């Protein structure tokens, strides 16, 4: 067993633990914090079913962003849609036998790799070209895009430039899932790709990537517009009525 294999095994166990525990902590924190007032951005759905639909449109189609700015919407949906396909394509490294629909996704996932990088470069370009967005961009905003673009580029690199032994890679990850560490191919492209992915997993719960769980907890989007019909009272606000 090479030192690199052990390093990546430890790295991915740690990254997974941080990602899962960190996200669980944040989600529990959001869920625990009360929303004392009804503040849906209106017009808003008046029922829970309507709220579910609103949230679906927001998460799947980026409805508000579409109304807001077509360039950001186009690059954003290109990146996120492609990322989804790429992630689904990667399921083949974690399942044996590979689920049949993951097989169907494979060719789409491949092109999606390019689309993902293109979307990222579009979003990144706006951070330089548009004065307003340049003003609000922090170093971490640039680094986040660099990280994601690096993941995409190193992944595409392994497919088209420097092949790696993907059968062995799959054996490594299936091994990790069964706590039976298998050797990882010694390829620099693979090392780069996996390091960046692990880094992304580690910073996820500490960064703006929290927009992913956050959107579901946004009171302006997830509340039904029914304040006259139902009394909405947070526990700390109810305490005030006891005085």
């Amino acid at each position, binding site marked *: 067993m090479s030192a690199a294999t052990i390093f990546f095994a430890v790295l991915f166990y740690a990254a997974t633990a941080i990602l899962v525990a960190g996200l669980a902590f*944040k989600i529990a*924190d*959001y869920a625990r*914090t*009360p*929303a*004392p*007032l*009804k*503040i849906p*951005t*209106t*017009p*808003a*759905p*008046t029922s829970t079913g309507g709220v579910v639909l609103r949230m679906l449109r*927001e998460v799947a189609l*980026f409805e*508000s*962003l579409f*109304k*807001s*700015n077509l360039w950001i919407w186009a690059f954003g949906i290109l990146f996120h849609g492609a990322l989804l396909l790429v992630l689904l394509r990667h399921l083949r490294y974690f399942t044996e036998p590979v689920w049949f629909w993951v097989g169907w996704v494979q060719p789409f996932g491949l092109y999606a790799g390019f689309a993902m990088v293109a979307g990222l470069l579009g*979003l990144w370009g*706006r951070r330089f070209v548009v*004065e*307003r*967005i340049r*003003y*609000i*961009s*922090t*170093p*971490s*905003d640039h*680094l986040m895009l660099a990280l994601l673009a690096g993941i995409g580029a190193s992944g595409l690199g392994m497919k088209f430039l420097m092949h790696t032994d993907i059968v062995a890679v799959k054996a490594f990850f299936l091994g990790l899932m069964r706590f039976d560490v298998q050797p990882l191919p010694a390829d620099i492209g693979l090392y780069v790709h996996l390091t960046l992915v692990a880094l992304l997993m580690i*910073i996820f719960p*500490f*960064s*703006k990537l*929290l*927009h992913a769980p*956050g959107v579901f*907890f*946004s*009171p*302006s*989007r997830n509340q039904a*517009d029914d*304040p*006259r*019909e*139902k*009394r*909405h*009272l947070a526990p*700390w*606000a109810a305490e*005030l*009525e006891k005085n």
Partner: protein
Amino acid sequence: MAAAEFTTPELKDHLDIPSLQRDAMAESKPYVASDKINTAIGFPGELVPDWEAKAIGRLGELLNKYRSLKVYLDACVHCGACTDKCHYFLGTGDPKNMPVARQDLLRGVYRRHFTLAGKLFPKLVGATDLTREVLDDWYKYYHQCSECRRCSVFCPYGIDTAEITMAGREILDSIGYGQKYSNEIIGKVHKIGNNLGLPGPALADTLQGVEEDVKEDTGIDVRYPMDVKGAEVLLVTPSADFFAEPHIDSLIGYGKVFHAAGISWTLSSKASEAGNFGMFIGNYEQLRKIALRIREAALELGVKRIVVGECGHAWRVAYSFWNTLTGIGAGANDPFAVQLQSQLDHRYKQPAHICEVTWDLIQRGALKFDKSANDQRIVTFHDSCNVARASRMGDMPGGQFEIPRNIIRAVANNYFEMAPGTTHEATFCCGGGGGVLTDELLELRVKGSMPRMGALKQVVDQHGVNFMATICAICKAQFTKVLPYYKFNRGMVGGVHQLVSTAIQLGDK
């Protein structure tokens, strides 16, 4: 600080996104509240010595009380979708008036003190210490936001800068760095019963004067009653309706509607104010305390219905918050709320907007109009931000847009819409809402009204519009002040019930 000289923006055919003018509005700030004003409503009199620690402490408390604040401070990805949506940015070009940049003034301090990344790598993630400079930026730029929520419509996560502004102001108040305008008004509402400090006897006089004027005008005895026990309706309206122009013309209209429909109603000297500046300063206790006056008045007078006059943020508070704060609403099963809810007549919406009442009566054929009485007016409608994006009327989402327009079409023949993207949920704030309607912020108010003024100019040029109807006391006061800066007649703004008042037929049934 006297209001500095400034240039009124030029109105163009379409709305340009300005290039950044750094610190363009760095001198704009409202007067700081005095010791006396602050202590009267329970805030420290002046900036406390250990303000930094106190402010961070208060931010921590708010983070645990408000999910909105916690999620919104985490979720922003700096995508930039909101950067061209704020009327104050569009009118001033000051980058700190871009919603995301306004939020970042607080977010930077949040990151520094409440996130691991900000504690370890502050420069990397834009985290900042709470220096005096940052604190002053909070004071300046959280008073250059009218809490209108336009940005929240366009944010992919619904991040509402109003929530951030409210938290910022709440923190400032908690360390004795509050704003004179809002805090003085809150003191008045507690001491005298309304924002304008109009005592009961003066109010009674005013209402008597209104009755005489209406009698002279129409020959009919329309009543404007106060403190009548057992009346069916308690009308709660902004106190500007009692004497300001053009507000009072809408008050006259409400009275005529009740008269024509034969509904007994009353105002209350105790709750002679619908406005609730507790919302503007983001202080839940004040918000609640001010709202409780309405509950007490309703219980004392034994009314069956509670109706709210033309006021934007007051309608937000009434529609969205009253059930929570006071039990005015339906569907509760706790004793506090049931005490009041069992008194109310639930065949009607509680509370109801005056426009809901009037439109309901129109649909039932209970009101008669001579639409030609409004023929000298060519009307457009300005959606007030808090009505448009933070409340509703009627049974369907969007009723807050349709019902006032339906009323206008029922009482006037000439009506034109302003451009899409400037109305309905995308409406531009008048520039004076959210606690900035004070003279030392005139430059901000004039520049912030530019997007609305541009849209108005289009319908003035194309259709000869000479009357912009609205249902908000602040919009009316703000437009009356800023219209002349854009070479419009200050008299062209008025209320929806002013139009109703002109056209309604009384007595000859």
